[in-house]
């Protein structure tokens, strides 16, 4: 502040009758350095009968002064010294009274626990077990909800379902197009370098076609949808949790699974196969561009190769996988959203965790399904 400010100072003066007077002077505000209280605090011992204050030299004051006075007051209380506040300005006295008005309740203050290594390991193990139970329970509930839906007994808003279908279907087309087109190009490019060594560049189309339809189309769509839609589901349900909206649904008698989870699952189950086929075709288009650009394979030749080589089963395998992936994306997104805590940070964590859970589940499921498909010779 202005230059005329005087520094805050704190000293003490001994008076007769075992009285100690604390002298406060200068301007006490947040801009000034706080004088040390250690000297005064050291002086406080039960031999004093009373502490008084002299504030004739005191200028401005704010919370800084109050904290010092409170520190001194608390110390005096501890040592059993009487504090006479009559020497303080009215405002200071009033604020101190206010601060003392509601004494701290016993047992309110908490010290964060600091578990040891063994305890931490144990806690982690328990958490992992609980997590497994949670996932299984959620899958179970979702299945029950879905069965109720199939029998037409689930309560949900049809308009929500259509909006969700639009959101996970048509609105996802641009990003799915871009990614699968590029993935098709990459497949073709990487593969053709090897194939060309044996003069087999004509087989680019077979490779891209098989790769996209059996594996990459479904997998890439699933990963895009986890990042795009799974995270959105988790964030949306999470903030509904924060706003008590899910509680409101429950008290109105709706099942949150039927109302929120089943439509989302359904939308993804319906849209993922379509997106997957679309991604397959986009990927093949990407491959044809590489074939045409690098090896002069005409579009006609490329597509004839694909038509001759690809069987219906190849598409069916990819589409089948994509249905399972749709369920997994919906489950991971909705589950993390429903488990969300009640702070804004929890919403962020729910979205992150939905993506992580989703991708882990998708890749694991893909590995298992690929094994099954190969061993069945489909």
């Amino acid at each position, binding site marked *: 502040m202005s230059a005329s400010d005087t520094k805050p100072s704190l000293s003490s003066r001994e008076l007769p009758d075992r009285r100690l007077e604390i002298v406060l002077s200068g301007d006490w*505000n*947040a*801009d000034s350095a*706080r004088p040390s209280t250690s000297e005064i605090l050291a002086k406080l011992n039960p031999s004093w009968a009373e502490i008084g204050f002299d504030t004739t030299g005191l200028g401005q004051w*704010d*919370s*800084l002064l*109050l*904290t010092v006075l*409170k*520190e001194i007051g608390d110390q005096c209380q501890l040592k059993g010294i009487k504090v006479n506040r009559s020497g303080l300005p*009215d*405002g*200071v006295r*009033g*604020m101190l009274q*206010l*601060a*003392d*008005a*509601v*004494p*701290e*309740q016993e047992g*309110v*203050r*908490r*010290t*964060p626990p600091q578990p040891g290594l063994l305890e931490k390991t144990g806690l982690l193990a328990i958490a992992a077990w609980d997590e497994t139970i949670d996932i299984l329970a959620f899958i179970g509930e979702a299945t029950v909800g879905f069965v109720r839906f199939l029998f037409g007994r689930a309560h949900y808003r049809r308009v929500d379902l259509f909006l969700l279908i639009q959101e996970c279907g048509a609105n996802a087309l641009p990003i799915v197009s871009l990614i699968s087109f590029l993935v098709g190009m990459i497949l073709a490019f990487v593969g053709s370098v090897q194939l060309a060594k044996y003069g087999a560049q004509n087989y680019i189309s077979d490779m891209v076609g098989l790769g996209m339809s059996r594996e990459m189309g479904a997998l890439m769509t699933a990963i895009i949808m986890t990042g795009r839609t799974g995270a959105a589901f988790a964030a949306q349900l999470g903030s509904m949790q*924060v706003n008590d909206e899910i509680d409101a649904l429950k008290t109105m008698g709706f099942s949150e699974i039927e109302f929120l989870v089943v439509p989302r699952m359904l939308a993804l189950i319906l849209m993922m196969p379509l997106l997957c086929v679309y991604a397959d075709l986009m990927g093949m288009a990407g491959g044809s561009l590489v074939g045409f650009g690098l090896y002069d394979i005409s579009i006609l030749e490329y597509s004839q190769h694909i038509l001759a080589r690809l069987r219906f089963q190849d598409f069916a395998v990819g589409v089948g996988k994509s249905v399972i992936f749709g369920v997994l994306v919906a489950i991971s997104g909705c589950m993390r959203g429903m488990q969300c*805590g*009640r*702070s*804004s*940070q*929890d919403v962020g964590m729910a979205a992150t965790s939905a993506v992580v859970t989703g991708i882990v589940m998708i890749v694991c499921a893909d590995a298992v399904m690929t094994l099954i498909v190969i061993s069945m010779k489909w």
Partner: protein
Amino acid sequence: MGEPHITVTDLTMAYGDMVIQRDMNFTVNRGDIFIVMGGSGCGKSTLLRHMIGLKQPAKGSIFYQNLSFWDASPKQRRRLMMKMGVSYQSGALFSSMTLAENIALPLSAFTKLKRHEIREIVSLKLALVGLAGFEGYYPAEISGGMQKRAGLARAMALDPDILFFDEPSAGLDPISSRLLDDLILNLRDNLGETIVVVTHELPSIFAIGNNSVFLDGESKTIIAQGDPKTLLAECEIPKVKQFLTRGSSRNDDKLASGATKA
């Protein structure tokens, strides 16, 4: 005390083309507890948002002492805003921080205080609002009334000159609401702060207010101003009378205590 602290001249508030209130003129003096009242949807909270600098007026100005808020430089404006404390309707605490971290945030950002000094100020502010010992709690772990008081503690963190309250007693039980009123009076009496309260709680209005404006949603302007108690006794405008007597327009004195009905 007594000198004009906030002066609002010809203020018109609008969202796009929709005018909320027009031609508002009033003065809040230093040390006033100034009540902004009116029915639901008349623009009370919007007026508050204009005064604390969240929304720019469509027309007119708001002066803090002699400085027009919206004509000031961004730096002056930031300075002014640091001298205001706002207690929001729902507390508006940062849910991912503990109460102590919530209150410490402005202190660590805008002052040169050391860490232990901040800790002591935080404890003091919490003690002032009756929450001693709750430093380590997250907002979700305490009740709505406590959240509101913690929000007030955060509003007071920087020792503001002016405190704004948006519906301080909404959602509080009568006793907590009364305690909050006492706290507001205490802050004014002890610190000489100017306090602006947006509310429609009649008991609070009469208990703490010494100046007020009454916003009318239909005519879209201020239709009465002054000490709420004087308004109750003397104002002849039916709408104001009805509001202050809780719905009855008759002139009985039993209605003066109408706030205790129902």
